[in-house]
């Protein structure tokens, strides 16, 4: 397959541009997506390409414009809502959980809501507690929503295309820290990546590091260091949180018998707790050690750089967890 090397933000943009060219019912709205060219430059050039009818700058009214987009979707349009960050979706929480996630069910299946919400998620660099939420844990809880969190440009491209074509509400969790990550993306405009299929980011036999989004790269770095110490770690990139690839979890644990879940966001409940539940329920006999989680420390994100580093999952904490599950003290 012919490939083009591009940054993750360019891959997201390419997916949106191609889908908007393919389907006139797709449109984009959000704060600063047009004239400003995107708060993180994901939408750069799109206003010039599609005009203000389809690339729409909104006032700072998340509940208003998220609700507007859901309303447009329930009569068949395919909006892409860009929140400046997922943190700000908190003021549109009602629209997402009470309307986007419920309209199909409340209407007895008469309506569908083909909408995409996307934004950077999780920690960035010293942006403080209100701008560092890992919001996927809140949303993955809700039936009616789909939640995806790719870690590479190719997956960002392929999964955003799948999301735009999907008839259900899809929430795409990006990371500011990955926007400049380069990678090969297929030149084929028909290339898509399905939901619910995990990717083996690194083969290994001793322990499975299960992760998604930014933390995949932390795991890959940890795996490199572990390799030097003689531990062959596998890295599973879930890509999709809801639906979740249970078969991949079972396959990984059946192979390595040990797992560490690594993600941004707090330990109480959340995606990591869900993963641990599935692994112990579906592959209990395969486990040689308890499954551990490496998450944010259980505090609001501090501003101070050193303390922030302490709270966010780092390579050393992943390695510590691996040592624990392999009983290699």
């Amino acid at each position, binding site marked *: 397959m012919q490939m083009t090397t591009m940054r993750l933000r360019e891959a997201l943009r390419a997916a949106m541009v191609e889908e908007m060219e393919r389907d006139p019912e797709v449109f984009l709205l959000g704060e600063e997506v047009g004239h400003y060219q995107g708060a993180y430059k994901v939408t750069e050039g799109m206003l010039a390409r599609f005009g203000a009818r389809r690339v729409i700058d909104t006032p700072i009214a998340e*509940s208003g414009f998220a609700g507007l987009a*859901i*309303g447009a979707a329930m009569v068949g349009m395919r909006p892409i809502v860009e929140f400046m960050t997922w943190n700000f979706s908190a003021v549109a929480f009602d629209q997402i959980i009470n309307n986007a996630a419920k309209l199909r*069910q409340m209407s007895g299946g*008469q309506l569908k809501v083909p909408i995409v919400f996307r934004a950077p998620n999780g920690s960035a660099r010293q942006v403080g507690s209100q701008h560092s939420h890992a919001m996927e844990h809140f949303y993955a809880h809700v039936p009616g929503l789909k939640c995806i969190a790719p870690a590479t440009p190719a997956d960002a491209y392929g999964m955003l295309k799948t999301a735009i074509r999907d008839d259900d509400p899809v929430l795409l969790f990006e990371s500011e820290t990955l926007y400049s990550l380069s990678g090969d993306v297929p030149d084929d405009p028909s290339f898509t990546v399905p939901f619910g299929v995990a990717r083996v980011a690194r083969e290994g036999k001793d322990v499975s590091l299960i992760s998604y989004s930014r933390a995949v790269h932390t795991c890959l770095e940890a795996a490199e260091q572990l390799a030097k110490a003689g531990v062959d770690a596998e890295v599973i990139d879930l890509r999709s949180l809801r639906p979740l690839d249970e078969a991949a979890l079972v396959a990984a644990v059946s192979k390595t018998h040990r797992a560490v879940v690594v993600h941004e966001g707090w330990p109480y409940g959340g995606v990591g707790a869900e993963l641990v539940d599935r692994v112990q329920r579906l592959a209990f006999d395969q486990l040689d050690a308890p499954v551990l989680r490496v998450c944010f420390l259980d505090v609001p994100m501090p501003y101070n750089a050193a303390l922030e580093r302490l709270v966010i999952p780092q390579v050393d904490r992943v390695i510590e967890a691996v040592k624990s599950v392999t009983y290699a003290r």
Partner: protein
Amino acid sequence: MTNVPELAALYRKMQLIRRVEEEAARAYAQGKIGGFLHLYIGQEAIAVGADAALRPTDYALTTYRDHGLALARGMSARALMAELFGKATGACQGLGGSMHVFDAERRMLGGYGIVGGHLPLATGTAFASKYRGDGGVTICFFGEGSVPIGEFHEAMTLASLWKLPIVFVCENNGYAMGTPIDRVLPVHEVTSHAVSYGIPSDRFVVECVREVVTRIGAAVERARTESTPTLVECLTYRFRGHSMSDPGKYRTSEEVEAHKRRDPLVRARAELVAERGEAAAAAIDAEIEAEVADAVAFSDTSPEPTADVLEPTTYAGPFAR
């Protein structure tokens, strides 16, 4: 000017709503309807008059007090009553219930249970009409209790900013649940907000269903021809409590009785009798009685939904677990 339908047709729908809801209240007391049941009794002229000003292809959204709008839009008494009974034959297969009545075909896009939450949705259907250039208008009903919440103001802002073809209809019945307007709104004229959003407004006391058609009709026409939103405030009164569990102790019986003496349904019937004779009104009443009795019998004998309905109504595609 909006074409006003025959009074007989308007009265028929008003009477249908009244009688369906009276029977729903009875069924609720009998335990056949669960959860919340918010009756529209006293306010029927608004949904019926507004619907008469709309095309069948226009979109309509409202609050949890949604039975009246559903019937006004043409939903059958059977489909509504069966939904209230939670039956598989209900408008939403028994999944929505009283507060969430949808009929996509008739562009009845729901009753919503979170105060204010559907106003942004309505701006979205209006946005879709404008984007597609299909000439459609959206009408969005809500109570004066929605005015303090942010979504009211966000929806007004977006509708005005983007000149969306929408009519916001505030059904001001004086009470947000049990709280009178003067304890929750610093400014009692809801239409005063229209000034700050730079949109036209209209405010009137609902006494005559035909006046509702022309007053809301003017706003619908403005939305359709100029793509300009309007905020309409209908001063009205609900004769029953907020929901079935509300005995309405916060209102005096004198106040309620005074409003009942000005019941727009009674007025519509009196005008119909004056124009067409008692026999014409009585014939409609008899038809409605039969229709409502049929709806109750249908709902009583309809099957319950089964568990296989749950997953396909949660996701359009494969279930995401």
